[in-house]
């Protein structure tokens, strides 16, 4: 990022009037490049306000909170833990047990299951005469399980003296925006990751003044290829599973990259419009996916390890696709802002003839952009197949438009030569946040479509106004 214009405005700001300051700010490159970031923040703030609600946490941290309360106030209490089945419930219950066991209270029972399992355990404890001071559970169970209701507990207490003091304990609830729950934010990021990753390649292509309509079918193609290959490799038991997965994934990404090279070569060699060439490649890719999959049926992959690639969260609980997305964006940002190749990409898009006459290998640069775009679409396909544990020749329909929308909303000019990688990330997040926020606030699907369409038009309009800045003063 460069702040020179803004700095200049600041340095001489004392003598300028308010209007000039404001004008400078609006015209500064910072606002031009990152104004969309503020739009994203505004959207987040809006949806946060709209989704404030009673929150009933079920998490490891909530479990620790409840357990600590008991450890501190009732150090000698006997505790029964009952929770329904579920990933978060399990984490919650384990946290309660661990924290209690680290202190002095006794865990006399641990139930993961349904209401009747809890009733059975209570009866067992009552018959055995084991005293129970607290029944630790979570919000849903406490409110909905009959056995944990006041009347039932009173009946139990009347029947078994050891249960006389039994009391239901659950984490306190609080008011907080559903949108801003950490788990929810990660979900939004995760849902955005696929589009955002493919949008990196699309940004490169659009910066060279091209377009790639084939990404969606390449996602499907790569998804099918990786699925078929994994199934094929896994039949040979003498390869390790990890080796199979890596080989299959790399092959799928490479195949998509080669398709990108093909696209780029056709576009540059014959000087054809990228729109038409990639429209053709889009069809070809779909056809190939269909061929490899042997039809429209999904190709199932029975490999937990492969599913883990997309579904896991190996880095401090952040979903793997989000981590991959972040790493790729950092790499792409460095490529675009600090390398010769990045500079060439902008120059080729801005003025191919001037670039060529300055010694830029214009055609190779364009082919590179399409190759990366293909490769990232391939990676998107691998992640998609991993998420669903299958590759579908009919998958990712219409994704190319979402990806292009993300790039355009992110401020990249369709005329080429202008655009920022981080802008595309913000564009993808804006689309993701709006989609998610509208779902949370129960906006109808038809209204959602209208909002998205309007958003794209507004983004292009902003691009037009921005470019008028220098073109206008040039006439």
């Amino acid at each position, binding site marked *: 990022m460069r702040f020179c214009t803004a700095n200049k405005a600041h340095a001489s700001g004392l003598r300028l009037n308010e209007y000039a300051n404001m004008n400078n700010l609006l015209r500064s490159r910072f606002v031009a490049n990152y104004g969309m970031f503020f739009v994203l923040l505004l959207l987040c703030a809006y949806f946060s306000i709209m989704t404030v609600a009673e929150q009933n946490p079920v998490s490891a941290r909530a479990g620790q909170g409840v357990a600590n309360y008991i450890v501190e106030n009732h150090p000698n209490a006997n505790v029964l833990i009952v929770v329904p089945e579920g990933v978060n419930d399990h984490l919650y219950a384990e946290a309660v047990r661990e924290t209690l066991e680290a202190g002095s209270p006794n865990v006399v029972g641990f139930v993961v299951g349904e209401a009747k399992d809890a009733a059975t355990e209570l009866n067992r404890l009552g018959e055995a005469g084991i005293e129970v001071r607290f029944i630790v559970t979570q919000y849903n169970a406490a409110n909905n399980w009959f056995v944990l209701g006041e009347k039932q507990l009173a009946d139990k207490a009347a029947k078994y003296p050891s249960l006389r003091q039994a009391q239901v304990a659950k984490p306190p609830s609080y008011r907080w925006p559903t949108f801003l729950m950490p788990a929810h934010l990660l979900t939004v990021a995760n849902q955005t990751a696929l589009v955002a990753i493919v949008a990196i390649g699309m940004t490169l292509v659009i910066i060279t003044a091209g377009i790639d309509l084939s990404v969606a079918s390449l996602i499907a193609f790569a998804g099918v290829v990786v699925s078929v290959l994994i199934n094929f490799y896994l039949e040979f038991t003498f390869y390790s599973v990890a080796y199979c997965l890596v080989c299959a994934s790399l092959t799928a990404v490479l195949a998509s990259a080669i398709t990108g090279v093909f696209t780029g070569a056709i576009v540059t060699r014959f000087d054809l419009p990228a729109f038409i060439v990639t429209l053709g490649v889009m069809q070809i890719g779909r056809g190939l996916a269909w061929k490899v999959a042997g039809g429209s049926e999904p190709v199932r992959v029975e490999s937990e390890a492969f599913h883990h690639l997309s579904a896991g969260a190996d880095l401090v609980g952040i979903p793997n696709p989000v981590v991959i997305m972040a790493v790729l964006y950092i790499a792409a940002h460095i490529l675009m802002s600090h390398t*010769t190749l990045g*500079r060439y990409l902008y*120059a080729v898009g801005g003025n191919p003839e*001037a670039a060529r*006459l300055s010694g830029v290998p214009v055609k190779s640069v364009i082919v590179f952009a399409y190759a990366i775009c293909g490769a990232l679409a391939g990676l998107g396909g691998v992640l998609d197949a991993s998420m669903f544990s299958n590759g579908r020749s009919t998958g990712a329909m219409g994704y190319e438009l979402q990806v292009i929308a993300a790039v355009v909303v992110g401020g990249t000019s369709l005329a080429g030569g202008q655009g920022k990688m981080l802008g595309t990330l913000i564009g993808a997040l804006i689309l993701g946040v709006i989609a998610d926020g509208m779902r949370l606030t129960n906006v109808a699907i038809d209204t959602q479509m209208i909002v998205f369409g309007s958003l794209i038009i507004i983004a292009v309009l902003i691009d037009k106004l921005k470019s008028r800045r220098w*073109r206008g003063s040039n006439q």
Partner: protein
Amino acid sequence: MRGIEKSFPGVRALKGIDLDLNSGEALALLGENGAGKSTLIKILGGAHPPDAGAIEIDGEAVSIVNPTDAQKAGIGVIYQEFNLVPALTVRENMFLGQEGGVFSLTHARQERRQTREVLERIGVPIDTERLCRELTVGQQQAVEIAKALLLDARIIVMDEPSAALTLKEVDGLFNVVRELKAQRVGIIYISHRLDEIFEIADRVMVMRDGEHVGTEPIGDLTRNRLIEMMVGRKLDDEFPKKAAEIGEERLVVRGLNRSRVVRDVSFSVRRGEVLGLTGLVGAGRTETARLIFGADERDSGTIELDGKPLDIRHPRQAIAAGICLLTEDRKAEGLVLGQSVRENFGLPNLKSFSERGFISDRRESQAFAKHVESLQIKIADQEQITGTLSGGNQQKVVLAKWLERDAEVIIFDEPTRGIDVGAKFEIYLLMNQLVAAGKAIVMISSELPEVLGMSDRILVMHEGRVTGEVTDVASVTQEQIMQLAVGLASTV
């Protein structure tokens, strides 16, 4: 036309021009490139509104602010680029734009009859149902003329009508012009070719630097007198030429060919020499430079630098060998207008600022800062968008980017076009410095005073060939150069 004035940002294109045209006469409009001829006829055709001045036709004042006004006033302008739709027939093109309402029906039979009539009127029978893309250039031109006549044009303006025609087609054009004259249509005829003017024009009007030099009947003029009127002013001290010591041959070009544009061009440039390369537009000067630089593919020819043969197929190779080209059209070919000045400066020099592909912004901006200071480039900061600079400053950015390459041979294509006098002077001083440092310069220019003022030696091109070489620059006149450029003389 009386007192026509027109300014574009930074240029006063027309300074009070008067033009009179009688019916049934052909008035030739002459002048060097940039004299303002095109601007004048664009005003007449309604493409640009004038800043001041009045237009009268048959004693009646008319206001022309757009092409429709011009049509209504009976003025038809045939530009160098035709306005025909290639995929429509002759008839459809003739009636394009006058079909009436969008939903009204077209009357093919009536249209065909009228088309045939008007084509016969100018003596060019063409099948009215042929597609325009199947016609020869000469026929397309005839259709354009017929289209103007169909709109009852009483004045027809032709901008370099013969430039794209074969000799035979030019004859046909002349017949059309004579036919029109006989029908009392007034014709304004712009051409660089003096022969044609003596053959077809009744009077000649000469313009220079946006001013009216004079209008005389053709019978009172000689070729030399016409060239004098076109070239005009005497040389003065605008050119701070300092001759450097001229050494051995550096760039040697032999037998350069590209289809019909560059034909068998051979020359050499020596250490410390400024070689002026001049000629009219379309003479093949820029094309020659592009061949040397590898911007276009050459059909044949060899290029040597310091005795070593070079195989240049791409600008990259020329740049690597130490040849650079400052293009004629800065905006289209020299600069990426949407990028910052620093990025433009860095484009051919990134290798020297980067390690393993990673650019050191610090080294780049330090290198640029040096040039900004020495060339006195006026920029707010290095991140300023290039498109917002004035022409002179843009040209300096181009200079900076090539100076940083430290090239051995520098080809300047119209280095001072469209920039102000001060910046021009600085560029001349820079050329002196470069030749003093032992570089070789090829300077392509249409400005004869500049060519005479700054060159050590001059080559003149005409229709793709080198038609003359001037070694004793001090004793040659602009008229003599002009004669070489229009193909009248072969030696001086």
